[in-house]
């Protein structure tokens, strides 16, 4: 089995502070990390590697500094790492990003393509499903677990808002994975020691086949109208009531706000 995992380097948003005057993110001094959902996806791939000796390739599109998360992926146990980097990709929105990644994946052997559900910097959850469309592959989003039969069927647990579904997918296919359900492994010490001796392949626009107008700013129909910091929520009200009274109280409050 061959698996390609798409990962992204993102600012650690738990450390991000907002400039109170301009409302924009203060990026200085914010550590960059592997996007948590992508790390969950990578863990899923590595579990398939542990059990079925799958070959795992990670790919990221980003600036040269994104090398750091590829080294981290090596230290976690992947077999191959590709950095897709070119000025032609700059300014890409989700559509242009998914075009570039799909074009790169076309040049790789795969039975399964895994992405994270969404990145913590943009929170769009669009790139994974778009890659599936460009590659004309079936997809399962919000994957929390997957069991492979060793041939070509994968039984998937897909989270939904009010529960989960058990689905079966046949390879080749695309999964978008949730970090909350899959705890990633730690990098191993030996993996870290050896990560910097391994080759990270650098691919540019020359390594993929795609119409130039689908890339970068030109290929990005998204326009950002305005960014602003969300207003802080007021603290909630606290009522000291018995469990019996609480039901009536909650119903009354929901009715008061025309929610029910």
């Amino acid at each position, binding site marked *: 089995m061959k698996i390609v995992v798409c990962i992204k380097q993102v600012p650690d948003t738990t450390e991000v502070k907002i400039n109170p005057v301009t409302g924009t993110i203060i990026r200085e001094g914010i550590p960059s990390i592997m996007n948590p959902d992508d790390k969950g996806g990578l863990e899923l791939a590595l579990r398939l590697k542990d059990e079925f000796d799958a070959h795992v390739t990670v790919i990221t599109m980003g600036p040269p500094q994104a090398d750091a998360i590829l080294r981290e992926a090596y230290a976690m146990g992947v077999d191959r790492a590709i950095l897709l980097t070119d000025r032609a990709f700059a300014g890409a929105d989700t559509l242009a990003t998914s075009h570039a990644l799909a074009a790169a994946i076309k040049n790789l052997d795969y039975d399964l393509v895994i992405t994270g559900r969404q990145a913590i910097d943009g929170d769009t959850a669009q790139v994974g499903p778009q890659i599936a469309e460009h590659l004309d592959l079936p997809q399962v989003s919000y994957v929390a677990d997957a069991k492979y039969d060793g041939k070509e069927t994968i039984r998937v647990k897909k989270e939904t808002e009010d529960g989960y579904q058990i689905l079966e997918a046949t390879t080749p296919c695309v999964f978008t994975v949730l970090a909350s359900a899959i705890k990633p492994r730690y990098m*191993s010490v*030996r993996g*870290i*020691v050896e990560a910097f001796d391994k080759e990270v392949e650098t691919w540019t626009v020359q390594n993929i086949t795609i119409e130039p107008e689908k890339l970068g700013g030109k290929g990005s129909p998204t326009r950002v109208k305005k960014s602003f910091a969300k207003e802080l929520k007021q603290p909630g009200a606290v009522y000291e009531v018995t469990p019996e009274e609480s039901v009536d109280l909650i119903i009354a409050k929901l009715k008061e706000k025309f929610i029910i």
Partner: protein
Amino acid sequence: MNFNLTKKQELFRQMIREFAEKEVKPLAVEIDEQERFPMETIEKMAKIGLMGIPVPTQYGGAGGDHIMYTIAVEELSRCCATTGVALSAHTSLGMGPILENGTEEQKMKYLPKMASGEWIGAFGLTEPNAGTDAAMQQTTAVLEGDHYVLNGSKIFITNAGYAHVYVVFAMTDKSKGNKGISAFIVEQGMPGFSIGKKEKKLGIRGSATCELIFENCIVPKENLLGAEGKGFAIAMKTLDGGRIGIASQALGIAQGAMDETVKYTKERKQFGRSIAQFQNTQFQMADLETRIQAARLLVRSAAFKKDNGIPYSADAAMCKLFAAETAMEMTTKAVQFHGGYGYTREYPVERMMRDAKITEIYEGTSEVQRMVIAAKLFK
């Protein structure tokens, strides 16, 4: 000259910080209260290769360096000093002497299982009458055919009872003084070897500290480590390495107390402002931060010398002396900054202060470190 960690060391620091925060910190209070050895943490550490950081890959280790090892002990100890010393004793005192003095057969027999964490290591030098004056060994070893017979006892042995492999020192020829001491690799379960009383301690209460008892203990001849009579030199060289580990533990305790104190003094309000806003707080904390940074540089400098084959005995003594005294000062002041709350077990600084004290005592007291440093100065 470069004071930065390499990319590899930095990535390792990132991993071990996360590991310590998520896996070690949540257990720190419990293992202190229950005086319980954190076996489950050791198993998690083993799984990712932390039990064999500086051991070469041909002996099953991770092939890392001693700077990485100091970072590991520091970060673990920042959350839990018990866990930090378990790793330090295993690595520096258990595996260290076998790696540096063992025959190829001994290395192949012991190191892969130790580096993988399947076997834990320990070190038996101290006796009731041979503490700082380690040459006063009473334990004896007599060669009888294909084995040595050991008689005597050791005290204050870290990891005892949980370790599988003990590097033990005994007199093979009393007439030669410290040149009559030899080192042996003793395995758990060898006939005549048992674990005695477990100590009840002020700090590092989860660490297993026990007596080792040898009653006509049969140790195969091939378990002699180094030549007969070389034991004292092996012990002293091993302790040089161990001191870098304990210095890292002390540094971690100090950093942990510093982080807690910064957080607390920013939150705690008295006289209408946070106590971090008082210049008394700021000046004392600035001095402590400076000491911690200085201790870290001494630790890393000693580890760098060890990695590069440069003599580091006095450097190890200096980093251990300075880091231990910094840990004691930092934690004592951390309790003071926390006031009454700091004296309770609601806050971790109380535990940190108890844990810090041992770093001024074991693997050579602060007085011994000064003797080592002065000996180099006045040689």
